[in-house]
């Protein structure tokens, strides 16, 4: 099989497996996967930024922008179609990202991270004060429809949402995988490795960083919009630093090598949260901390590094 079709085929197969799996799993689990997918999409955006050597502590800003974008499009625009809402959320975040990106592209390391954090906290503060947007309580949304299909009961609705989320995950994972393999994908890593050489080859480091940041904003917005229609609620907490922190956690746990690892990490985090808040309601942060420590100690390149190592070993074992 030509490698050209290998990735799309794998994507299609994954989608089929996920859709079937959703029928077999209990509803609470399916719903948990939807939220994990929403966060995974935002974390996938963060991975794009990490690949160019920077860390954003403000990915929550775009998660929030996507959520409010979709939510207000529903409440004020009267649109209920999930695909349109998610697209609207993504676009709002994209525009916001495109405006901010050039301002941030001149900063590096801790300054970049702190600035992104500051901007998201600014948005959080502003939203808490914005009474017409529900203030700190936020706004409740109505259930979405899916290309004309209006789920009749909650089981149907969760499954429809899940299938929709799976499509988003597979489509954007595919896009990112192909992009990572592209020359432009390598250029991000090149910027991370050596900015001087990139400029001395005739390319603009600022442009690379701006583009990655904007694309990350778009993915953050898509994730935020998906989350908003899933939980049928938006509030300023989406831009709070703890939300951004979760994305950082997922991105670090997954590493920057594998797209699948991002969603695996996101799912792992959601399950840990769900179990520990059920069994150790007061120690959820501690379980998260232990989990994070263990992953940094034992998986320095994240889950993606683990997958990559296995792939390499399999390749190495092949006779020449």
């Amino acid at each position, binding site marked *: 099989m030509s490698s050209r079709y290998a990735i799309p085929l794998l994507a299609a197969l994954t989608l089929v497996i996920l859709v079937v799996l959703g029928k077999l799993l209990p509803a609470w689990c399916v719903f948990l996967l939807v939220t994990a997918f929403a966060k995974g999409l935002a974390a996938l955006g963060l991975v794009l930024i990490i690949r160019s050597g920077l860390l954003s502590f403000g990915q929550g800003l775009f998660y929030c922008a996507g959520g409010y974008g979709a939510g207000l499009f529903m409440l004020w625009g009267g649109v209920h179609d999930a695909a349109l809402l998610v697209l609207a959320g993504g676009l709002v975040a994209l525009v916001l990202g495109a405006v901010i990106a050039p301002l941030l592209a001149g900063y590096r390391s801790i300054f970049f991270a702190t600035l992104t954090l500051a901007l998201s906290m600014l948005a959080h503060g502003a939203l808490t004060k914005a009474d017409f947007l529900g203030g700190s309580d936020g706004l409740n949304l109505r259930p979405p429809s899916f290309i004309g299909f209006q789920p009749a009961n909650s089981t149907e609705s969760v499954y429809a949402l899940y299938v929709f989320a799976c499509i988003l995950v597979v489509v954007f994972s595919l896009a990112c995988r*192909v*992009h990572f*393999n*592209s*020359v*432009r994908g*390598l*250029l991000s*890593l*090149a910027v*991370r*490795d*050596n900015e*001087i*050489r*990139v*400029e*001395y*080859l*005739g*390319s*603009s480091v600022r*442009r690379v960083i701006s*583009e990655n940041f904007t694309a990350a904003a778009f993915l953050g917005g898509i994730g935020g919009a998906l989350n908003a229609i899933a939980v049928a609620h938006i509030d300023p907490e989406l831009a709070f630093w703890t939300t951004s922190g979760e994305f950082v956690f997922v991105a670090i746990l997954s590493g920057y090598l594998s797209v699948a690892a991002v969603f695996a990490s996101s799912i792992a985090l959601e399950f840990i949260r769900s179990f520990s808040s059920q069994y150790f309601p007061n120690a959820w942060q501690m379980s998260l901390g232990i989990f994070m420590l263990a992953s940094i100690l034992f998986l320095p390149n994240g889950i993606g590094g683990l997958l990559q190592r296995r792939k390499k070993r399999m390749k190495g074992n092949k006779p020449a």
Partner: protein
Amino acid sequence: MSVVLEARNLNKSFGSVVAANDINVTVNRAERLGLIGTNGAGKTTFVNIVTGYIKPDSGAITLEGRDITACEPRVITKEGVCRSFQVPQLFLTLTTAQNLAVAIGIAQGQAFSPYATIDDAMAEAIDALLERFRLGDYRDQTVSELPGGVRKLIDIAVAVTRKPKVLLLDEPTSGVAAEQKFALMDIIMSALDSDVTVLFVEHDMDIVSRYAQRVLAFYDGRIIADDLPQAVLENQTVKMHITGTAG
């Protein structure tokens, strides 16, 4: 003979250190220039000024008559002045082929289309470049794992992907064992097109006499000699300050 690069009255100080002191140079097309001088004489500073990394305190650089003094390195690179570095500047976590892919992608303008993969044409260009620089064995090795001499070659290989008019090589043979220097220079010089203007910084005078058509001798930020290699190497001031063979 047409003039390709010109430096006029360049001055640059770092605090009390004068790194460029009234530098005047005219470089002709396809010339091979050797830049010599002791440590700290101002050779790298000269290369840095020409390529826009350092702005001179005064003076001007012109490329084919156009003033490029105020331009960013990126712009100067696009204008056709490319360089390698004393310490190779590469993408250490990428393989040799990936380093070249990035360089070729930028040079040919496809580096910014988000989904353009390394197609057959680019793979061919990469292989041709690897072949030219005898780097075939290192194709899929991560650059951080390669020895210094190989990195030097890759640093030059990525620099020529734009088919530069002027190529500046900062100590291409430093860090390489003495007996391998000639072999390395042979590879470099035969890999370059004959119409490229080359300025290379070099400490080894045997290398300079073999590969340079003309030599610039730097001392204390000044150019103390600018002539044919033999004439420069026999110059008394050069002997006293640089080659240390006066007597």
